């Protein structure tokens, strides 16, 4: 190589720009990491003091303000049931709404569904809680229960499920729908057997995000399931604890033992969401064909 031609010279200005932007992107990456790392490390550090089998397997029944024992067993059960029921409501409804909008929608109902989901995305969680409180708990006289909390959480999940599913379904190439239709497969079967499986991993991600988001919701729980210090395995009757409301209640007390319980509760919540994520990813991977 002679190195004299114009091909060999990198203009100084461009090299400078390249370095600047490389530094900037890395910088932004580090800045974005700071809150994540600090939150996780703080929760792990403070939460591990009380995070043990005792904490996971005992409720707060009979634990006085000065007692050091007690745990979040009742709250874990409550959260699992509430979020589980919320998912049972929101995921089918959300999937069907998204399928309608993307696959079948013609006419004025489509923009209406889009508009409503957009508006719902902006609903503050306390408003969802208030709605269930006035409508379900008071007006219909159903009383406080884990199920009332599940309804509020479902309302919060729904727009996320619809939105992400809509986007992912939109990414499925039309050529696949055409291939299926051209084989004489009816439209509904095309959606169920070709489009949805193709979009499955994306849909799973969206659904998990929606679940993760509502798992940590506190405000709606306080208005719908209240809180409870004992185990209530029946989500359809009587007040029920949940991990977020448990953390909220413990953190509001002056004793160090209660604050430690709050941190351990937060750690439990964090691990629960992480576990959920892993399980969902596993499901998505298993259902996808390996190459």
């Amino acid at each position, binding site marked *: 190589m002679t190195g004299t031609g114009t091909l060999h010279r990198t203009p100084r200005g461009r090299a400078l720009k390249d370095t600047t932007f490389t530094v900037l992107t890395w910088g932004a990456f580090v800045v974005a990491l700071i809150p994540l790392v600090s939150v996780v490390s703080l929760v792990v550090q403070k939460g591990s003091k009380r995070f043990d089998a005792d904490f996971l397997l005992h409720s707060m029944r009979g634990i006085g303000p000065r007692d050091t024992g007690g745990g979040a067993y009742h709250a874990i059960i409550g959260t699992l049931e509430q979020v589980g029921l919320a998912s049972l409501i929101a995921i089918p409804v959300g999937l069907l709404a998204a399928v309608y909008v993307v696959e079948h929608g*013609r006419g004025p109902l489509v923009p209406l569904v889009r508009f409503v989901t957009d508006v719902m995305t902006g609903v503050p969680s306390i408003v969802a809680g208030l709605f269930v409180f006035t409508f379900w708990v008071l007006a219909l006289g159903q009383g406080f229960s884990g199920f009332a909390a599940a309804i509020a959480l479902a309302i919060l999940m729904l727009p996320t499920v619809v939105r992400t599913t809509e986007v992912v379904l939109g990414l499925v*190439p039309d*050529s*696949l*729908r*055409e*291939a*299926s*239709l*051209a*084989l*004489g*497969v*009816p439209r509904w*079967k*095309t959606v169920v*057997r*070709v489009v949805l*499986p*193709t979009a*499955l991993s994306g849909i799973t991600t969206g659904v998990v995000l929606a679940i993760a988001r509502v798992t940590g919701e506190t405000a709606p729980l306080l208005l719908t399931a209240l809180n409870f210090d004992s185990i209530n395995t029946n989500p359809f009757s009587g007040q029920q604890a949940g991990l977020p409301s448990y953390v909220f209640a413990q953190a509001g007390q002056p004793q160090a033992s209660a604050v430690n319980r709050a941190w351990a509760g937060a750690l439990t919540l964090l691990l629960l969401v992480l576990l959920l994520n892993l399980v969902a990813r596993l499901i998505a991977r298993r259902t*996808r*064909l*390996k*190459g």
Partner: protein
Amino acid sequence: MAKRIVARDVSAYYGAFRAIEGVSLTIEPKSITALIGPSGCGKSTFLRTLNRMHEVIAGARVEGQVLLDDEDLYGEGVDATAVRRTVGMVFQRPNPFPTMSIYDNVAAGLKLNGVKGKQRLDEAVERSLRGANLWTEVKDRLGKPGAGLSGGQQQRLCIARAIAVEPQVLLMDEPCSALDPISTLAIEDLMTELKDRYTIVIVTHNMQQAARVSDTTGFFTIDGPGQPGRLVEIDATEKIFSNPSEKRTEDYITGRFG
């Protein structure tokens, strides 16, 4: 098995836009008919009217009659899905189902239409893959994803998928335009073989291809942008490429326009 197609005064619309106007032609069974013409002249649109795939697009509709032997595909009470099982289609870009294995791709049309029984499916898969000249290449990896094959193999997989439901007519919309010459040759050879059993209609931009494989050639064109496409003439391929009746056909095939 193969059936004759008669189109009578077929017009196709996208909303208010008329894409093709007044196309009438006859396609003989067990022959290959090529449709040629410049881009945007409505050949693909016409092809899609032959298995009611045109109406899949929102706002699209068809006027006129398409007779398969004596049955009007657009007659009252005709089930579009049944039409599509009878008139199969292969698309421009290979489009195997990405979530399915090679086996499942070929069996898809049968499985999704409710055919059960492993033996029956196994037979259909082998027969179709043999029919598409793909069997020897994939028989040891039927469980692998169809999307992992090469482009030419994927297109033959799509042909196998289309013939697995035992259609009577096979429509091919520029099936080789995304393929290299060797894969193209494989598909062309395959078409010549399939002609013994099916009525084949192929849309192509490649005039040599039309001349090589087809028995009959139809020439479509448009008068200008925004105008509907029309069939200028259809005749034996030999005649179209040596001594066409219409001046416009001659101009096109000799490369004077389009």
